[in-house]
């Protein structure tokens, strides 16, 4: 390997990271695979934090009139549990798979903007740390993950908790937005020759639609958060009732973001399942083009249904009806997907691996999540189930039954490619069944509790309301879920050290990531593949399925490229992120630190633009 530098202006003469292993190589990395792994472990840590917060709440609610946790702490717990799980656990875990696998799935050596990619990660990490540091700096926000004013304003929330919450979300939001741009450009522009849009693996499609949702929805919550931050920090009157404000403006801004956010979480999960089901049924995805268009339709209509979260704010019957009908429409493309997944399974030869079982768990549980969602869309009866445990049950069927099951499926399916070791199948299946049982025990009773009239976000309830039994069952289920997560974590950690080494193609896969070694070399593909089919590897393995000249292109790929130019590391992404991170504390404690942080970030940006590429040449021949 060699490092080349040509001209050396001031900025280009700045020190460049040279380390190829060890701490600094990770801190300065711009390699999409390393960034994917950083996302992976960081989001797991935040997931465990969010899980402990959930368990504490379940313990408090296990019986009536309990005082394990007081009301204020309880309010902080549900605020931080939701914020952590959505923004710091599930989204980054999907981002981990975007990062690691999108370039591999489309036959690229990296994402379009490797340094921006590193920046996204640092913003996520530092934003998450900023948000959670509020536990030690006077306590976090207790205003819910929606942070509705005026409860979130100084008058009712005088501490710094809400400020930490707002700024933490803004910081991670910047990272999310940037990775949204990055993945759209990557998928549209970095495809291997022959990888037409209609040959993209479904996961790439759902990633792209998700990224579009991020690009269009995150700016809206940014405005909502900034407006309430201005009220809190600078005394503006945007949400001051006595100045004539209308609080529902915030409701609408928040949910214009909030509803697409649901699809930001669920669409990648659908993509993962659409990758796994064909592999373990040994059949192509049923109705590929319909799946693509239904994904786009879900993304598109997902922007027109936000007010179904607001049926009880008094919008009137016309608005309520319009949003109720729009919401019902979404059930159609979602239903199509469900049928196509079953169509994929039908007639196949189904292998029940741990990954497949989690994917099938997704089908069953997401079905319940979707159906309860349609029930919620009927505005008049929504007035009863809205803000009850029915809703809590519903969206956990979507977030856990949908997103988390598919993410754990992805850990079992793609983990061998990421870490080079097979996960233990037996532990994987035990993990699945405990999670499946624990999950249904935790969340199905919540649907019933909603019908029995238990509202959300209450830290306690009286005896004799009919809530006791179901809450007790739910808490036991939550403990079983916790056990399952520990089993999966144990499986992951021990397999990484002692697991069977993973071959390139352990599952008899269909897509490009299985054509290269596990774990993946730095340059991904020794020679950029030429793609002639939607299931490229599958068709190469079964040439009788090919429509064209597969054999020749495959042969042309045998000889690796002599030398591959890869981007080297950079300090700048971390520097820019650190400036914003430290500056954010300044905004709350000492303004000069804020301006200093902004200056550091701006300097970092200039350095970023002018420092040069720090390119490195890698010779695949040497590493084989």
């Amino acid at each position, binding site marked *: 390997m060699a490092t080349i530098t040509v001209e050396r202006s001031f900025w280009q003469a700045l020190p460049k990271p040279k380390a190829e292993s060890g701490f600094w190589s990770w801190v300065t990395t711009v390699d999409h695979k390393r960034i994917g792994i950083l996302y992976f472990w960081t989001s797991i840590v935040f997931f465990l934090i969010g899980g402990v917060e959930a368990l504490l709440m379940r313990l408090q609610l296990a019986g009536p009139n309990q005082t394990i946790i*007081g*009301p*204020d702490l309880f309010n902080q717990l549900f605020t931080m549990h939701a914020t952590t799980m959505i923004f710091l656990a599930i989204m980054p875990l999907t981002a981990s798979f975007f990062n690691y696998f999108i370039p591999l799935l489309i036959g690229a050596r990296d994402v379009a903007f490797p340094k921006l990619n590193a920046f996204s990660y640092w913003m996520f990490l530092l934003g998450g740390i900023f948000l959670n540091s509020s536990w030690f700096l006077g306590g976090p926000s*207790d*205003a819910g993950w929606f942070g509705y004013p*005026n409860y979130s304003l100084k008058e*009712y929330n005088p501490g710094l908790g809400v400020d930490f919450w707002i700024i933490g979300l803004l910081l991670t939001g910047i990272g999310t937005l940037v990775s949204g741009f990055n993945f759209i450009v990557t998928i549209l522009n970095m495809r291997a020759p022959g990888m037409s849009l209609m040959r993209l693996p479904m996961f790439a499609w759902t990633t792209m639609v998700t990224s579009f949702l991020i690009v269009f929805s995150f700016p809206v919550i940014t405005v909502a958060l900034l407006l309430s931050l201005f009220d809190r920090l600078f005394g503006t009157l945007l949400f001051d009732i006595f100045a004539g404000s209308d*609080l*529902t403006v915030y409701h609408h801004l928040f949910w214009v973001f909030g509803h697409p956010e649901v699809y930001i979480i669920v669409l990648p999960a659908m993509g993962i399942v659409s990758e796994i089901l064909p592999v373990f*049924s040994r059949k192509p*995805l049923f*109705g590929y083009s319909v799946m693509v268009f239904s994904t786009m339709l879900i993304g598109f209509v997902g922007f027109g249904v936000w007010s179904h979260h607001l049926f*009880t704010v*008094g919008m*009137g*019957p016309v608005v309520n*009806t319009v949003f*109720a*009908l729009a919401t019902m*429409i979404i*059930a159609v493309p979602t239903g*199509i997907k469900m*049928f*196509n997944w*079953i*169509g994929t399974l*039908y*007639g*196949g*030869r*189904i*292998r029940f691996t741990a990954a497949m079982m989690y994917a099938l768990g997704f089908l*069953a549980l997401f*079905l*319940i999540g979707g*159906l309860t969602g*349609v029930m919620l869309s*009927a*505005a*008049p*009866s*929504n*007035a*009863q189930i809205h*803000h009850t445990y029915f809703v809590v049950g519903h969206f956990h069927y979507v977030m856990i039954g949908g997103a988390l099951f598919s993410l754990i499926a992805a850990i079992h399916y793609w983990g061998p490619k990421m870490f080079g070791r*097979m996960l233990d199948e037996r532990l994987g299946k035990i993990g699945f069944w405990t999670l499946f049982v624990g999950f249904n025990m935790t969340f199905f009773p919540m649907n019933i509790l909603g019908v*029995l*009239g238990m509202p*959300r*976000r*209450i830290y306690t*309830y*009286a005896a*004799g309301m*009919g809530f*006791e*039994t*179901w809450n007790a069952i739910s808490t036991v289920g939550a403990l079983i879920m916790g056990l399952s997560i520990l089993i999966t974590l144990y499986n992951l950690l021990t397999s990484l050290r002692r697991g069977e080494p993973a071959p390139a193609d*352990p599952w*008899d896969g269909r897509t490009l990531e299985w054509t290269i070694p596990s774990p993946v070399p730095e340059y991904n593909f020794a020679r950029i593949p030429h793609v002639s089919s939607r299931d490229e590897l599958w068709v190469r393995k079964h040439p009788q399925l090919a429509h064209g000249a597969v054999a020749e292109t495959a042969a042309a790929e045998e000889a690796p490229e002599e030398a591959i130019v890869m981007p080297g590391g950079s300090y700048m992404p971390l520097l820019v992120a650190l400036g914003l991170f430290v500056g954010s504390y300044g905004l709350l404690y000492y303004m000069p630190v804020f301006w200093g942080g902004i200056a550091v970030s701006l300097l970092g940006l200039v350095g970023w633009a002018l420092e040069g590429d720090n390119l490195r040449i890698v010779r695949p021949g040497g590493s084989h």
Partner: protein
Amino acid sequence: MRHFQRIVGLAAMGVAGVALPVMAAPQYWLDPAGPVAAMQGQLFLLTLYIMLGIFVTVSGILVYTLVRFRERAKASARTGEAGTAARRETAAAAEDELPPQIEGNHKLEIIWTLIPFVLLLIIAIPTVRLSFALAADPGPDALEVRVVGHQWWWEFEYPQLGIVTGNEMRIPVGRPIRLIIESADVIHKFWVPKLAGKMDAIPGRTNQMWLQADEPGIYYGQCAEMCGTHHANMRLRVVALPQAEFDAWVANWGRGPVVEDEAQLAAVERGRMVFETRACYACHAIEGTAARGTAGPNLTDIGSRTTLAAGILENTPENLARWISDPQSVKPGSLMPRVGLSPDELRDVVAYLSSLR
């Protein structure tokens, strides 16, 4: 009919055999006590039945598919050695075992696009109809009640009757009640499950809904929008009375203490003095006295209420004394301060308030 629905509803939720806890469920809204909740419950059940039908059908097909098309023993012998070199060699031999590589079926796709449409239409029509029906004004003979959410209690004002009360709303049976819903501080959500669904109480806005109780009884409700520390303890009750009893309550409201003997009268009078001179009067109002505070609930009929502190304590003299002497131990974070009364003063105030029936 309602009984039938309740049974079906329970069975439908998959809870057959555990009906016992449900019987004592005062917020179980599928057992409605008024027309609004009944209509909403019926729509809910309609959606529930359709979704259950879909669930049974789809999961049935899924399970059938998984059982029928699972990899048989012969083939699965190979999966254990996933990815070994031997596997690659057998791959070619397994060619003939490939299941039919079907990529799609247009006819099927169209069918399973149309079926959801039809099912959704069945839900959509009553949704639209009911949305407009429930938003309609209940008519000129409705009793109007202005509901104001406070951290963490409810104020009920009857503009037509000149009555203000708190946490317990008395209504006549069989008469529609028009609710004007507002908030004095943060966003709350008014909800009495057995009578009607929720409506937000948003500061700066006025919302409207109606409800009606068909039978006399006490109906539980509580705030359903996170509103701070005691969101969970912001409960309320609706007491539906036969018209005559309601009229009697209206007539008695603000008539002052009801006492049985001279001794009690003296205690009540002393209690009233304490109330009007110590901190109490600054936050609470009692009709016919100098107490005109509005920060806390109006206490004119406190003696006739069933609960204290927004539905968390039963209204007994002991509990009242406990609540007044140290509100923070009963409801930590409550906005009611500790007034610091002497034991005698406390006893007199309790006697006074209990007599306001």
